[in-house]
């Protein structure tokens, strides 16, 4: 009695599942099977259309524009990689890429850790779970334009936390990252973590609640402390949820814009500038469509360089 194929059953390669031993199929049945084979493709038509026209189309168009000298409107002259050269000796662009890397790592790690902790603690059958969930999720509902402004006030040494704590009796308490060239990006991380960890908590909680209760009982009998169960047993099982969360957060990181504009306008100076803001400034404010498109293409290529190996490993992993 050999073990049946694993639950996730990688299907035979090449799409359609052939059911073995189908008795002599007539021409009609053959034709019907071809038709049924096309149905999945028909269902994916909207997706194919979106990908080809919207995403692929826009990317190619941006690539073409980034090799022209377009200002407000696209122009069809050709300047080769001039825009890219200008991009890479633009100090503000290099700083924005560094900011993005630093912001991305800190933001994703902090949000996943806090989101997971919140989900775990809420999963301890606490009273008032409904209220707590809404408390952690409400920031995601509000537009960052106003909440960003509030965070700017809170973190501003003049009017915010620092002044309040000083008045409460710690005269030399300083918390002025937002006005410090090197530390301002951390303030953007704090506000973004405040906004996004509620969503991560929701997704993680969904994952936790899907775990079979008997697993918990078995672990208790094995004498494994609760925190260790979460760390060594539950967390590894959350693979798919973690993957989804990572992709969601990563797209958020690459496109971060509202948080920076609402809180620091990219300041002090251009210390907290991010690629999306650089692109937006040049796209609209400075009517430089070509440079903005070049920025977008470079941003996309950096993402491709980061994501491609992961996607390749995962797809190879699944078919092994």
């Amino acid at each position: 009695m050999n073990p049946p194929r694993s639950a996730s059953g990688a299907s035979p390669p090449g799409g359609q599942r052939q059911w073995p031993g189908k008795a002599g199929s007539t021409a009609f049945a053959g034709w019907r099977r071809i038709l049924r084979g096309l149905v999945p493709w028909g269902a994916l038509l909207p997706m194919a259309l979106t990908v080809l026209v919207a995403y692929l189309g826009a990317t190619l168009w941006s690539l073409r524009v980034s090799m022209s000298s377009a200002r407000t409107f696209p122009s069809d002259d050709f300047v080769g990689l001039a825009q890219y050269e200008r991009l890479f000796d633009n100090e503000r662009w290099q700083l924005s890429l560094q900011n993005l890397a630093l912001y991305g790592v800190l933001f994703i790690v902090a949000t996943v850790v806090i989101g997971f902790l919140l989900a775990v603690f809420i999963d301890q059958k606490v009273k008032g779970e409904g209220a707590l969930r809404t408390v952690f999720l409400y920031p995601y509902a509000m537009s960052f334009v106003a909440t960003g402004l509030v965070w700017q006030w809170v973190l501003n040494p003049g009017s915010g936390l620092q002044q309040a704590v000083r008045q409460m009796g710690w005269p030399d308490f300083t918390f002025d990252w937002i006005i410090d060239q090197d530390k301002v990006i951390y303030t953007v991380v704090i506000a973004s973590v405040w906004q996004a960890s509620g969503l991560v908590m929701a997704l993680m909680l969904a994952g936790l609640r899907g775990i079979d209760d008997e697993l918990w009982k078995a672990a208790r009998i094995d004498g494994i402390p609760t925190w260790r169960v979460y760390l060594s047993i539950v967390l590894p099982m959350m693979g798919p949820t973690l993957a989804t969360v990572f992709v969601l957060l990563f797209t958020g990181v690459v496109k971060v814009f509202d948080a920076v504009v609402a809180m620091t306008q990219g300041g002090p100076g251009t210390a907290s500038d991010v690629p999306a803001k650089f692109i937006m400034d040049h796209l609209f404010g400075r009517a430089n469509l070509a440079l903005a498109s070049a920025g977008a293409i470079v941003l996309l290529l950096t993402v491709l360089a980061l994501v491609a190996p992961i996607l390749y490993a995962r797809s190879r992993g699944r078919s092994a």
Partner: protein
Amino acid sequence: MMWARKIGLITATLALAGAALAQKPPAPSGPKAEVIHWWTSGGESAAVKTLSDAYRAAGGQWQDMAVALGEQARSVTINRMVGGNPPTAAQFNTSRQFFDVVEQGLLNNMDEVAARDGWDKFLPEAVLSVIKVKGHYYAAPVSIHMPTWIWYSKAAFAKAGIAAEPKSMDELFAALDKLKGAGLVPLAHGGQAWQDNIVFAAVLANVGGRDLYLKVLRDRDAKAIQGEAFKNVLLTFKRLQGYVDKASPGRNWNDATAMLITGKAGVQFMGDWAKGEFTLAGQQPGRDFGCIAGFGPSSLYIIQGDVFVFPKTSHPDSLKAQKLLASVITAPATQVAFSNKKGSIPIRTDVDASKLDLCAQQGLAIMKDKNRQIGNGEVYMTPDQNGALADILTAYWNRNIPVEKIQKQIAEALK
């Protein structure tokens, strides 16, 4: 025969305009105008209402499309044009922002209205240089703001023992030192790129003078930029940074003005729109706060204003609407009403200044002298160059970089 027809035409239009103004506004069946603009806050809304009332009085229908923030509004206008559904009129700054749009031939010109209303006679040269492209008038000016007023809180000056209003840069620095001595914040400043640039423009105008201003911004002459005079301007600019409080980075300009209103700070470099915050707080020029346009008899009046452009459209009556709108907003009565609410000064000097506030009257007086009028950076530079300069200046303001390096960077950016 030719003459007869021409005279007939002119009298007919005059009659129409006169009739429109004199009589009770006809039923709003007149030309519909959809206008995109970014005057969205309380005070600004009151100002744009004067325009819409005037246009309705002239028989037109005003459809309002307000979009916050200049960059956003301009992008909506351009996208609407590309999408084939352009507005009747759209706001731009008195700058080169819409030159590309003109190049693409997407704008109707207002030569007829300009000729009839005699725009050349009353418009400042700086404004004309922007709205006239290859001889055609492509924009109707709406307002003239001066971005580099120097505001000061009388209460703070009294507390710091400053008797008279500073008359020169050195007197200003002396006042700032006294303010610092009195424990007040000498210079209230919002640490955002565009506000840093306002301080620079004020220093360039008051310390550099007209010739250097034009050489650097208009001619973008590398020798002048690398020269001693410009180095001194940059050093004075950087010296001002010493008088700013630590919590300045990221602060909005209204919060900086609030420091003046509450007497916590002495001086602020800001445009004449700051009057809106003062009036909102119930303060009056001359009594609670003072306004200085510039130091010295030949101080410059930097012009940064707003215009309306008129996209080409296929709708028949929209050209009529655009012409009516262009003439209505440049009419003296509308200009005075608008300036009063907006805090700017009228685009024409031949207006009755009595109804304007103290500071506006001071501005209008300066504007009467043609060679004290000068455009701001956007008038002489493309948006891209203007932005690049802004990046360098805000970096210099926030970080200590040797001034020679800054001069080289500016020369490089503006070549």
